[in-house]
């Protein structure tokens, strides 16, 4: 029973010394998947938080209400398991006393955490595509990334019309994100007169898709949808599709996976692949951010990163506007009041009232690109309404 005593001692000590964020340090939490399949996204989020913190600390700290705060980033890995995310979040909120969190990543962790974050008035910047992540009851939940709910309709409409594709095939992971995205995609294609004739689900860890792809190809599809598969899976799908002799267009109506597509499938296989591009890789602001990120982390930039970077910057601006770092209600109000905020993505706003009764979804332009000779070329610019 020594452990119990130790625990008792520890808790007494902590209650006595009770460590809230010191007057000079403001902690920014990161709760994401830092190991396993979702790592590319997790690192994008952590990097964004750290770079934004660096910016502000480099200037001597964030000045709010007459005091200067040094930003400290505290990161936790949730292994993409809702239970681990919950435990980590408990720690973030109760042990570290953090009120601003970049995360969670993934719909399952998000759904498990949101009741806790709302109860404790913790502002979260989440990467979860499920529509349940934003609602009138989750007042403190913001979503900086553009979910498939928002971008798939205009993108699919444009691509399907351009290609004249009628029979679509696709593979979806059998988890929250996969099921979500699958349903959204199917509806979007139907709206433009195309039909999902082959829809297969697979276990998240699977790497051998040849039997499933063979099954899909047997339906004589015009085009293949990569949708919400993880970047690595998407790369393997493209590679294995081409190995099976499929020469038709492949469409990625899902999060950014371009770097992995090129790395895993190679230049030749990725010809005739249409991708969703959340950012314009040609804009100087993005190129500068990319260089900075890749120099520091030595991995290719995942396009979700600038969105979190922007959101953190907006949070800082909101704190300054509200004049407080502890009253998250005021910070939230201030954040929602930011209009046409200038970021590396361009000017951004908050939308979402109509869809989810909460306008805490970031609105930024996005793009459709075609992979040619190993590089993405923007072929259309989009808003939530349409692409052209």
């Amino acid at each position, binding site marked *: 029973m020594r452990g119990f005593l130790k625990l008792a001692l520890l808790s007494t000590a902590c209650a006595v010394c009770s460590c809230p964020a010191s007057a000079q340090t403001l902690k920014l939490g990161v709760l994401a998947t830092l190991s396993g399949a979702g790592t590319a996204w997790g690192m994008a989020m952590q990097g964004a938080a750290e770079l934004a913190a660096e910016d502000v600390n480099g200037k001597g700290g964030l000045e709010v209400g007459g005091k200067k705060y040094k930003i400290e980033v505290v990161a936790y890995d949730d292994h993409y398991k809702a239970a681990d995310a919950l435990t980590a979040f408990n720690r973030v909120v109760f042990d570290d006393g953090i009120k601003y969190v970049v995360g969670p990543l993934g719909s399952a962790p998000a759904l498990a955490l949101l009741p806790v974050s709302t109860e404790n008035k913790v502002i979260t910047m989440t990467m979860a595509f499920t529509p349940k992540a934003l609602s009138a009851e989750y007042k403190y939940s913001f979503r900086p990334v553009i979910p498939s709910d928002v971008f798939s309709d205009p993108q699919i409409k444009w691509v399907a019309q351009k290609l004249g594709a009628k029979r679509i095939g696709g593979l979806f992971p059998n988890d929250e994100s996969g099921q979500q995205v699958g349903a959204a995609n199917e509806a979007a294609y139907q709206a433009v007169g195309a039909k999902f004739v082959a829809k*297969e689900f697979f276990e998240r860890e699977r790497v*051998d898709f040849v*039997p499933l792809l*063979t*099954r899909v190809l047997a339906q004589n599809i015009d085009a293949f949808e990569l949708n919400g598969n993880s970047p*690595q899976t998407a*790369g393997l799908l493209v590679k294995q599709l081409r190995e099976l002799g499929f020469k038709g267009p492949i469409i990625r109506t899902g999060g950014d996976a371009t770097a992995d597509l090129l790395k*895993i499938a190679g230049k030749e296989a990725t010809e005739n692949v249409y991708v969703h591009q959340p950012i314009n890789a040609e804009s100087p602001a993005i190129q500068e951010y990319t260089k900075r990120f890749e120099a520091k982390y030595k991995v290719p930039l995942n396009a979700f990163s600038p969105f979190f970077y922007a959101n953190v910057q907006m949070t800082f601006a909101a704190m300054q506007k509200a004049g407080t770092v502890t009253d998250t209600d005021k910070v939230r109000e201030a954040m929602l009041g930011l209009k046409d905020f200038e970021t590396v993505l361009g000017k951004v706003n908050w939308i979402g009232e109509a869809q989810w009764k909460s306008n805490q979804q970031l609105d930024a332009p996005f793009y459709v690109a075609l992979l040619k000779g190993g590089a993405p070329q923007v072929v259309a610019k989009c808003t939530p309404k349409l692409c052209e």
Partner: protein
Amino acid sequence: MDYSILLAQAALNGLVIGAMYMLMAVGFTLVFGIMRVVNFAHGEFYMLGAFTGFFTYVHWEMPFVVCLAIAALTSGVLGMLVERTLIQPFRSDEMSGMIATLAISVIIQNGAVMLWGPVPRAMPDIVTGTLTIGPFSFSWSRLVVIAAAALIFIAFWLFMQRTRLGRAMRAVAQDTETALIQGIRVNYIYPLAFGMSVALAALAGALMGPVFSVSPFVGLTPMLKAFVVVILGGLGSVPGAVVGGLMLGMIESFTATMFGSLVSDILQLLLVILILLVRPAGLLGQREA
């Protein structure tokens, strides 16, 4: 796409994964047959083999055959060390030995994550292009896997049947006490068998690297499949592992192509549970005395 192409494709794919399962299962069953150890870390040696293949082929640009040899040797030696230091203490306690291998697998996997990062690496195909026979097209890289696995197994089989060491191993597997009486140095056989077993796993990993990619987490599924195959074929039976491996590969490929992967996974597991209940010794295994 008509039925014949579908079937041919499914058959080829079945052979490819069957070949990989066979290599994994043979090593796994060897260790169980000789040492009664259920090696939960088996999959991690597959992963190490994949990484070794990746680094030697992509970074050092050596000919692939050399890469395979290096993968086998490094894993084999590591395996022998692991057996001597970490598994030998549990020779009399099967359960603890099993849990120890579990701990070892955790250490190896996370060590790999620390050393090489969690992001998967893409390994280029050894041979590019496709072989086209009439309406069928098969990728060369997958055909190469089948051929290589067959060769490796033949080499292993000859070793076990024709060499003194191989015969000694089989003797120990059959009856340790008698083997001891015959003067066979059991204390040398054990690490050697373990090393060989994981070397086979490493070869499987290196061969499949270009097909399935390389990351610290690739070892899990091959190990689970090895379990399944070994139960199917019989714990301790090498012919059982071969037959079981190829069978499972075919079953998996065909059921996945016909019914989708989810149904396929459940069917495989149910099949194996049925075998365990009806004939626990598996298809070709020995009845436990």
